[in-house]
């Protein structure tokens, strides 16, 4: 019944990131295919620099040795392979990049390496809770902000991809920016939290200064330091 003080570190530090990887699909004969790669590189050197590359081997039949040879031929051209696809992992040299699964296709619009396109972020979705969050309840909303019209009880937990707003007393745990959003913040009308975390950086009740307790407060990330400051 009593909520145990479980170390939450591993959970919090384990974060996901997604990158768009180029997928190379070599064809037979491999020599011709490598020539095409060379032609692309001759036109724009550094085209693949810093890009994750995945090799899709579904269209070719290669021995474990052949795969190793192909990977090293690409390496000599400055192309490092992040993972393999379309091949059974058994019997492959363990030094080879891992066999991946679950990738999804997408359109790569901007491949020029230098140009960084700034897109306005889509409006963040949010979750509104109209009643207090009670001890033992765990609200997980990775899509965006969580707003609570009421208190968050001791032993309750809120996990949000975005910021957390508590219009009441925050007595439990609040973890904001769980997907690596370091701009996320935690706001509450009265702070008595057991744990506050943003993007994996956390402080426990012991770290929260006595002068702040029971005051309106916010928590935010200043570099990699979690700061808790009064809200007025």
């Amino acid at each position, binding site marked *: *019944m*009593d909520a145990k003080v479980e170390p939450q570190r591993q959970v919090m530090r384990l974060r996901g990131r997604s990158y768009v990887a180029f997928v190379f699909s070599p064809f037979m004969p491999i020599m011709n295919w490598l020539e095409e790669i060379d032609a692309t590189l001759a036109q724009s050197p550094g085209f693949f620099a810093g890009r994750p590359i995945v090799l899709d081997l579904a269209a070719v039949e290669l021995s474990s040795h052949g795969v190793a040879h192909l990977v090293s031929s690409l390496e000599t051209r400055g192309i490092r392979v992040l993972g393999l696809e379309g091949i059974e992992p058994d019997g492959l040299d363990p030094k080879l990049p891992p066999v991946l699964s679950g990738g999804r296709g997408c359109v790569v619009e901007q491949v020029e390496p230098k140009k960084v396109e700034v897109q306005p972020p889509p409006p963040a979705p949010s979750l509104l809770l109209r009643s207090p969050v*009670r*001890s*033992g*309840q765990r609200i997980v909303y990775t899509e965006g902000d969580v707003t609570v019209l*009421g208190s968050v*009880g001791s032993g*309750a937990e809120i996990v949000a991809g975005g910021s957390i707003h508590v219009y009441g*007393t925050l007595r439990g745990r609040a973890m904001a920016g769980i997907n690596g959003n370091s701009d996320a913040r935690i706001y509450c009308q009265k702070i008595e939290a057991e744990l506050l975390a943003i993007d994996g950086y956390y402080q426990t009740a012991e770290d929260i200064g006595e002068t702040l307790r029971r005051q309106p407060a916010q928590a935010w990330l200043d570099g990699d330091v979690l700061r808790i400051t009064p809200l007025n």
Partner: protein
Amino acid sequence: MAKVLVVTSGKGGVGKTTSTAALGAALAQRGEKVVVVDFDVGLRNLDLIMGAERRVVFDLINVAQGVAKLSQALIRDKRLESLWLLPASQTRDKDALTDEGVRDIIADLRTKFDWIICDSPAGIERGATLAMRYADEAVVVTNPEVSSVRDADRIIGMLDSKTVKAEQGEQIKKHVLITRYDTSRAARGEMLNIDDILEILAVPLLGIIPESQDVLKASNVGSPVTLNNAGSQPARAYIDAARRLSGETVDMVVPTEQRRGFMDRLLGRRAA
């Protein structure tokens, strides 16, 4: 219309069984037809507090399993004719009780009584969830102490999510009953104060029952305290709580150490 009331707490030993018996008897004294139902299968207690332990033949599980009829298991109180007990089994374990079994018994009791008061076992497991499952209202019992209040908060969360009412999108009506309120320790500031408890739980207050020898005396003779010594402090607090349950507005009194201060009012706080 019949009302199903669960007396629950999360934490053990806070006074659920004492409160079930006292509130049940107080409501019955007001002329309501009341049955108190012991859901603490395997650790039954309510029959002792009600002084009916030597009259138990069939129990809740026998009825749930169709071995006995409800009318065979119900025990009428010897002092109050509108007060009945449906005892639990001391020998079975909690798994013997099924959701359907409880549903059917509660539905049957609704046709026969004004109040069906379910004495929940401690904890948050099956026994406790079954006791609250078909309730319309809940009395959440807590002592003025941190762990008890936190468990009460947890139970309130379950009342708002695991009951049939909650699943149908309705609100189950909740009341907080603060028991074992020790006036001398309160005077020394050794307990959580009432405002803090109510702020944490955000549920209306049904009553404050003082810590009192009268409760022990009553349970030793197998009588709800409201019957055994109706003029005692805890009995009066329970009688007031029962009046609030039936919808009356009764001023709240905070028990204090000296008899003279007993009627001190908790200003501005209205009953549930």
